[in-house]
């Protein structure tokens, strides 16, 4: 800073700068420093200790060839697509229904939102119990359908869908609350105008309200998407990646390589790929959201 030449500039508003010190330190050391560190060391062959012996893209080549990583990516893609589509569609429909001046609105909202107050660990363990063979499967079999099979948690190709079910149960309420807030922000005049013109309600929603709520949808999308990339606790609680590696996700891959198997370079490379994914989601959004505002 030019502060050394003009001391008053640096010391002006000094209290505010002191108050902002934790933020400045966090930004510089954690958000910028740690991220750069991780990216740099992802190009090294570090095993249990970080060492600066660069090996180019070796870790990345190994990563993209690792079957476990590819399973993780496939899982997160399935989980991501399904939970994005379902939570937004279901969340929006619930919000629309809640917006019909219904009675007991508070009760319904409390019910839809309470899972969001619970941790992913609790969510995962509850659904593990419900989906286990003594759970729903047994109930249906006892009703006389002896051959009924719902082994979501033990079937390698289905286990990720069990995680999707649990994730949706936990997160849809949040989408509903955000959408409902968005619907409440729509001017009542719009509805009156649509009614005067004789436009059916569903058409008003699809062609007028949804386009008007674009910022809400975009924000919700970004929130859910960045949450999806972080998915970890739910998998650990529900299946711990199993059976085998069939419900593994990138965040768990990173954790295992870094902390359990002392293969640091590999874990760092995987986490750098996660970061890149988030940036690909985030940068267009930031340009959409803040680029336009600066032009004003």
């Amino acid at each position, binding site marked *: 800073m030019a502060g050394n030449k003009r001391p008053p500039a640096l010391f002006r508003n000094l209290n505010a700068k002191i*108050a902002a010190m934790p933020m400045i330190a966090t930004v510089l050391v954690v958000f910028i420093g740690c991220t750069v560190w991780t990216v740099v060391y992802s190009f090294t062959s570090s095993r249990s200790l970080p060492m600066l012996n660069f090996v180019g893209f070796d870790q990345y080549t190994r990563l993209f060839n690792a079957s476990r990583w590819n399973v993780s990516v496939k899982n997160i893609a399935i989980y991501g697509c399904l939970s994005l589509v379902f939570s937004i569609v279901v969340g929006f429909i619930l919000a629309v229904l809640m917006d019909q001046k219904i009675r007991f609105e508070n009760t319904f909202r409390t019910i839809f*939102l309470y899972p969001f107050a619970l941790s992913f660990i609790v969510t995962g363990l509850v659904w593990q119990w419900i989906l286990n063979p003594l759970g729903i499967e047994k109930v249906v079999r006892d009703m006389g359908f002896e051959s009924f099979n719902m082994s979501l948690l033990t079937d390698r190709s289905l286990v990720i869908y069990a995680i999707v079910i649990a994730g949706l149960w936990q997160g849809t309420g949040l989408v509903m609350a955000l959408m409902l807030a968005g619907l409440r922000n729509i001017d009542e005049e719009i509805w009156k105008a649509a009614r005067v013109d004789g436009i059916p309600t569903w058409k008003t929603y699809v062609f007028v309200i949804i386009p008007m709520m674009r910022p809400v949808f975009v924000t919700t999308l970004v929130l859910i998407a960045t949450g999806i990339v972080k998915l970890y606790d739910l998998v650990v609680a529900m299946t711990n990646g199993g059976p085998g590696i069939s419900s593994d996700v990138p965040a768990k891959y990173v954790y295992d390589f870094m902390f359990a198997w002392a293969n640091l370079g590999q874990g760092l490379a995987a986490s750098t790929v996660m970061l890149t994914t988030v940036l690909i989601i985030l940068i267009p959004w930031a340009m959409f959201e803040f680029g336009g505002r600066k032009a004003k």
Partner: protein
Amino acid sequence: MAEATAIQDRSLTHAEPWGAKPKRMFAPATVMVYSILIVAALYYLLPLYVMVMTSLKGMPEIRLGNIFAPPVEVTFEPWVKAWSQACTGLYCEGIRTGFWNSVKITIPSVIASIIIASVNGYALSNWRFRGSEVFFMILLFGAFIPYQVMLYPLVIITRELGIFGTLTGIVVIHTIFGMPILTLLFRNYFASLPPELFKAARVDGAGFWRIFLQIMLPMSLPIFVVAVILQVTGIWNDFLFGVIFAGTPNFPMTVQLNNVVNSVQGVKEYNVNMAATILTGAVPLLIYFFSGRYFVRGIAAGAVKG
């Protein structure tokens, strides 16, 4: 579609004269709306119901019976066992250790993160300096970086500082990662207060800290409540930071719960597991039920842009 229009008709008539209007309680559209909402509500309530019912049954009844059936013989044994005898690895002290660890982690983390973020938000809204907005933008973007990217360097930093695997360490970590959302929350709140108040206080000669303590703080109780709720639930529910930074003797309740339920050895006692799960979820759930409005405001704050 006539049904859907009917709903809209009813909802829009409120702009017209007040007073008793004839209500069609059982219009087909209304019935449809309520039935969908009720079915959805049942789906959302089901896991909570199953948790409670399972935790009140004995093991024989669980093996024979139906998870949806209420207990024939209500027993509180699983709750006692979950609290004080359930095993995690070598120790069989129940999840009360985890409960108290979570309390010990949550209270200082909530206090530290809120003090730092509120002062920071106040500086950012009323005392901007060169670069303050840039730092704030990076801070907000930092909230989207996957934690996995920063975990290992943070392990090194905390180890160098000698706080890795300690209560202080986990408190620092929670303070750091709570900063983006809390700062946003406080900055926006302070910016929404009438600027005349701030100007008048400055004219009267009050400085940075005095304005904060005597003018801003007394006016911002609601936002502090929102921040406390947000942080208590967030930190209580944390798993990843707890498992890495807290150290084995300080494992929070979520970590201990996962160890109890997913431990490989021994016979699985589903009733004890469910009781332990409820106990772990109880703190955020109680906060949620008693503070509904503030809770919604807190999570909405995360979505509303600054």
